[in-house]
Structures are given as structure tokens and as C-alpha cells.
């Protein structure tokens, strides 16, 4: 079961198991996926914690993310520098949150970050418009987009500031029946 692996020390693997929802085998598999993205950049030996980051363009090409309309935002929300360059730690973190074992509250926090395009900690009308256009591949007319965004703010905004804060978002998403299954 991989006791002969030399990519990580045992302490590192145990630490990863404590910090994410993954098992040992899954973490090793994630490393091989990370390595596949750029074999000449990513070292096979992580025991001395090399400082290696992969750019956004390589990561959004992964089959799991390629079809997702929010792939850029997903990678950006998990990157330290906000530009989408992920180290292996952040890579594992991203998949840990997206995995099915992550609890609803954690997913809600990151979902808010993903949908917040201008990173101002509020979902304002422009954020909603961008989300909608990504979702429908811009098939809706501007009036329809306007209507949907207005209705969304009307439904979810509790404090009346015409934008959704994290509390509004969390309140709305906690009642959604499909949220946990789909994200």
C-alpha cells in the first residue's frame, strides 16, 4: 500500500491526512496528478518541501475542471496570490474542499469566494451578472439577465444593501436541497 514511496515522509502524509479529507492513497494519487500537469517542473521528492507553483493555465486544463464555467475563479480562490498559481498544498486543499466529504459550511464559504468575481466580500449585481452569463453561455437577453439578478437580490438579501453579504448567501444556501450534491 505504498510504504515504499519516497515522495513524502510519513509525518508529512499523516499531517496531510489530518488537514484534509483525503486518505493516504488519495494524497499520493493527487501528487501524481499534480506531477502529470508539469513533469519537468514538479519534483518527485517532496520531503524537503520544495517551493513549486503551477500556473492557472495548466490547472484549469485538468479534465475535472475543464468543463466548469467557474474554473478560473475556483483556482483563483484557492491560490495564495489570487492569480491562480497553486502550490501542491493549495492544490490538495482545493480538491479537499471540492470532495464529497467536505461539510456544507466549508463548501458554502468557498462557493461565496468563487462567485465573488471582484473579490470585495460581497456578491454585488456585477458578480451576479457575470455568474449568470457564465452559466447560460450568454444565451439570455440583457433584460432577462437584469430581471434574474434583481430577483436573486430580492430573494436573498436580508440587510437591504442591494448586495449579498456572506451571511445572506449562507442563509440562502443552507436551505438549498441540491447544494451538497452538486458542489
Amino acid at each position, binding site marked *: 500500500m505504498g510504504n515504499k514511496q519516497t515522495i513524502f515522509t510519513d509525518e508529512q502524509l499523516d499531517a496531510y491526512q489530518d488537514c484534509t479529507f483525503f486518505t493516504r492513497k488519495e494524497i499520493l494519487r493527487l501528487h501524481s496528478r499534480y506531477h502529470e500537469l508539469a513533469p519537468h517542473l514538479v519534483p518527485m521528492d517532496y520531503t524537503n518541501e520544495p517551493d513549486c507553483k503551477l500556473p492557472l493555465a495548466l490547472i484549469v486544463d485538468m479534465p475535472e475542471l475543464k468543463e466548469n464555467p467557474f474554473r478560473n475563479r475556483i483556482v483563483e480562490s484557492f491560490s495564495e496570490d489570487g492569480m491562480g498559481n497553486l502550490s501542491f498544498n493549495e492544490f490538495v486543499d482545493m480538491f479537499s474542499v471540492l470532495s464529497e466529504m467536505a461539510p456544507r459550511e466549508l463548501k458554502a464559504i468557498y462557493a461565496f469566494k468563487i462567485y465573488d468575481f471582484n473579490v470585495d466580500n460581497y456578491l454585488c449585481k456585477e458578480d451576479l451578472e457575470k455568474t449568470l452569463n457564465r452559466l447560460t453561455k450568454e444565451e439570455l437577453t440583457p433584460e432577462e439577465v437584469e430581471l*434574474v439578478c434583481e430577483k*436573486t437580490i430580492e430573494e436573498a438579501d436580508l440587510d437591504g444593501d442591494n448586495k449579498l453579504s456572506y451571511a445572506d*448567501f449562507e442563509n440562502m444556501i443552507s*436551505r438549498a436541497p441540491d447544494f451538497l450534491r452538486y458542489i
Partner: protein
Amino acid sequence: MIMMTTDIYALFSSSSSSSSSSDSDEESLSEGEIEALKEQVEEKKKLIATLRNKPWRMQKRLSLLKEAQEFVEKFEGALGKGKGRRLYAFKVMMTKKLIKFNRDFENFKTACIPWERKIKEVESHFGSSVASYFLFLRWMYGVNLVLFGFMFGLVVLPEVLMGLPYGSIPRKTVPREEQDTAMDFSVLLDFGGYCQYSILFYGFYNNDRTIGLLKFRLPLSYLLTSVGIFGYSLLVVIRTMARNANEGGDGGEEGDFIFSWKMFTSWDYLIGNPETADNKYASITTSFKESIVDEQENQKDENIHLRRFLRVFANFLILCSLGGSGYLIYFVVKRSQDFAKVDPKTLTWFEKNEVEFVMSLLGLVCPPLFETIAELEDYHPRIALKWQLGRIFALFLGNLYTFLFALFDEVTAKLETEKSIKNATEWAYQQYFANYSLFYNTTDVPPPNVAPADVIRGPCWETGVGREFVKLTVSDVQVTYLTILVGDFARAVIVRFLNYCWCWDLEAGFPSYGEFDISGNVLGLVFNQGMIWMGAFYAPGLVGINVLRLLTSMYYQSWAVMACNVPHERVFKASRSNNFYMGLLLLVLFLSLLPVVYSMMTLAPSFDCGPFSGQEKMYDVVIETIEQDLPAFIGNIFTYASNPGLIMPAILLMILAIYYLNTVSKAYQQTNIDLRKKMKMVSIGVVFVLF
């Protein structure tokens, strides 16, 4: 918290530097601070346990983890100073070992889950709704495996290992008349011949109270295992329902956040296939447009009377077809009873398998018929899907129960024949007795020396019923696999290869590739399981057959869906459908419990086959065990417990409890609504205050 830590660091360093001072000094320090320290350690431990749930950067988590682990290690050792140190250190070491063991066990368990990769592949191509069918199939496989374990280990294995072998007693031998055809393939396919007199069916089991060296009580075990199968299934279904209900969100009303939910939760993050993604985009757009139109138009009703008339008419048509199908099945089963009286060699294959054929045909033809009729009704697609599922459910249920009633008639007929055979056997025995005494002029008559194959046999209705269920299950499997082969695979091959030389585009127009019929397949699975539950009592081998069937289904259907199907055009789900199907399963469980319990309680067992032969009623075995094997006072307890005077108040109490819980739940829902209103009020109030 950091301040406290440094204080404690200081305290300990100061105490160690003044170690030369009296020991009591150190002791008083420990006693006073030890509680606070323990609390610290507990807090750090809790942090370590919940670290993965925190929305921090990985680097921060790793460094916090290291810090917390170092703290815990350092001070757990230190806390052990003084009394009970060794015990404390031992406890700590055991907890660490336990955590490690748990972690390894979790890793092992995840590695053991079968077909995970296959299901994930299906999920990424077809979305989570199709994958939910396969998850359901896998869950069913697990449940059936456990049921098989029960039946096999507690009933079949003891009989095979410790019971009498084939051919030793009449019930275990093929009768003389049937022996020359017993090995024929057609007879075996029909589950007659050697199949009928094997461990597959009820009739094989002997009614000895105890068998073998271990004095294993087979009849009791048979009865209790059959009941236990239902009990276990009930437990598992309800536990899964409760788990789904907890995860599926806590009952927000459908209409509360329509647009918000559509915007933030409609994308399926598990999609990895471009075709599926395109379909998903299209369906999201359509769904938004639908809601927009709904919002704008305010549901203007064109012609409410016409719509009502059409709906009533559609329901009438559907009731007619349901009634028609029920009558057809009854008619066919009656005919099969007539056929059974005729010599089997004169019947065609069709006439022999008419019942199963008709039932499968109805199951294939009626659902599309219902769908076409439902177009008259003009409902919202989600509501139409619910109606469709309900009607298919009613169809299957009606068919199954009609089949059961017809079967029941057959059973009563067999019981009548049994009486006459019993009389014949007794008469023959008396004849033998009289002849023997006359010939040898003695009253000490040994039992007749007849070969087991020649003994006059009763009709053994339980094996008959078991055979019917097994034949039904097998034909159901055949029809399903054939439908997939023809309806999906052949269709895909034709569309793909004929497209080169055909006038219109086969792939885009008619017939194009098939879509995976989730609801049809899930309902089929649910009803198959219902038949297994019903038939397991009469045919212990049926559960094993079902396990094989589910195993092959998994591989066959996952291959078929990947090779021949395209993702759905309209991707919508019957919301919270997981619990919907579980609810159906629960209903089917209860409905399949009824016939079995009824036959156990009312019908008399056959006099010469099965583990209950010779008893008045099947449950007499339990009463016998209580009277003979258990101490006297337990028998008294049972007598008291079965007194109607005790049962009626108990039932009354349960009804009152249900009523009370219902009222409390309604009160909670009302409080929920009130609190929500209050929340909105408060927010508006804040705005007012600001102004």
C-alpha cells in the same frame, strides 16, 4: 490563549529551576494549574480534529497542526507528573494507537468499496442523477449480500452439512414418475426436476426438530431467519432514509429562493464531459427562461375548463388501462392453472411461460403509454414526472398483487388436493398394515419398506409458490437484459452504421441514441427487491440468485450506459429523489411483508415437505420451542404478552405517541416560519432605525 500558554511555560520553567526546593511546592503548582493545562490540551486536541473543516490556507493549517501536536506531546508528558502518572501515560499511548488504528481502518474501508471508479466515470459523463441509480444498485447489492449471508449461513449450510443427503427421504427425492425427465434442460430451466428437489426450494428441508451433533434447530432457524430478513431490511432502509434526510437540507419550502438556487446550485461540479456540459448549459438556460416566463406571466390560465376536462379524461384513460392490465394478468394466471392440469409435453414454450411473458410485456408497454396519455394533461415537467412515477408504481403494484391473488387461489386448490392425497396415503398404509398382519399373523408391524422415490407425494404448495417467484425473477432479468441489448445496443449500432446510407440524419432525428431511463430502472430494481422479499421464505436460494443478478447487472449496465447512451437533454431531478426512491422501497417492503406473514399465520403447511410439515400452523415451531426448551417463566411472559388485554393498550399508546410527535413537529415547523419572518422583520427594522 497564547498568553496563558506562555504563562504556563514560565510556570513550568520556574518550577523546574526551583526543583531543589521542596516537592510540595511543585505539587501545589500541579494541582492548581493541572486543570487549566488539561483544558488547554483538550482544546488543542479538538483543534487538531477539526482542522480540516477550517477555511484556512493549507500552509497555515500545517503549521498550526505542528504547533498543536508539539504542545500536546510536550504537556501530555508533563501532566503525568505525580500520582497516576503511569496510568495517564498508558491511557495517552492507547488513545494514540486507537487513533492510528481508526485511520488505517478508514483507509482500508475506503479501499474495499467496490466499483467506485466505475461509478465516478459514469457520473462525470452523465451527471449525478444517472450515477445515483448506480449508487442505489451498489447499495442494494450490499443489502442483498447480507441477506444472502443470513439465509445461507443459518438455513442452507446447516441443512447441507448436517441434514440428510439427497435421496434419503421422500421429500428430497425426485418422484419415480418424473425421474426420466428430471435432467432435461427444458425441465431444469423451468426449475422442475432436480432443481425442484434441491436446496433452492422450501420443500427440500426436513422437519426434524434438531439435526446433527450440534443439535441445530432447523425449523426454528428457518422461521426466525425469514422474519429476520424483513427486520434487517427495514432497519437498513430506515437508517439510510434518516441519513439522507439529514444531509438533504432541512425542508426549505420549494418557492422560497427559486432564482437564487438556480443561480448558485444548478451547475453540477462533477461534470467532466463536454457533451454533458453542453447539455447542462442548455438545460440551465431553459430552466431560467421557464422561471422568467413564470414570473412575468403570472400563470394566466387559457381555458381552465378545457384543461380540467382533459386531465380528468387522461386519468380515466389511465385507470382503464390499469384495470385492463390487472384483468389480463388474472386471466392469464387462471389459464396457466388450466395448463398445469394438462400434460406438459403438449404445451408450447409460449403457453408454459405465458404469465411471466405477459407481466414483462405490460411492464414494457404501459409506461410509454402513460407518458403519451399524460401529454393531454399539460403539467409542469417535474409534476408530470411525479405523476408518471406514481402511475408506474400503481401498475407494478396492481400487477404484483393480482399475480399474488391468482397464486393464492392456486394454493388453496393445492391444499384441497393435499387432503385427498393424505387420505389416499393413510388408506394405503392401513392396507399394508392389514395385509402384513394377515400374512405374518403378528401385530408388530415394521414401517413399510418403500423406496423414497415411490412414496405418494403431496403437491407441496410452498415449493410451487417458490418456483413461481424464481421463474418470475429470472424472466424479469431476461427481459431487462434483452431490452438493453435491443433497445440500446442494437439501436446504437443501427443508428451509427446505417447513418452513412440513410435519407435523414438518424443521429439527430428519429431514432437517435437512447437516454438512460433512470426512473424506469430504479422502479424495476425496487420491485425486483419486493419479489425477492416475498419469495425468500419459499425459496431460500432466491436471495443467492438475486446477488448474482445484481452483480452482473452492475457490470452490464455500466458498460451499456457508457457505450450506447447519450446524456439527457433535459436534466432535471424529482427533487430530493434519493429519499423518494427509499420511500418507495419502504412501501414495497411493507407490501411484500403482508403476504408472507399472512401465509405464515393462516395457511397450513404441507404435510410432507418443508421444515414445518406436520405442524398445524407454521409458527407452532416457535411455540413448541418456548414450551419445551426455554425455562417456564419465559413461557408465562409470552402468554401474558399475547393477551389482547395487554396488546390493545399498547397499540393505543403507540397511536397516542405518534399523534403527540406529529403535533410537536407541526409546532416546530410553525416556530421555524415565525423565526424566519422575525429575521426579515429585524433586518427591515434595522433599516428603519438607520433612517
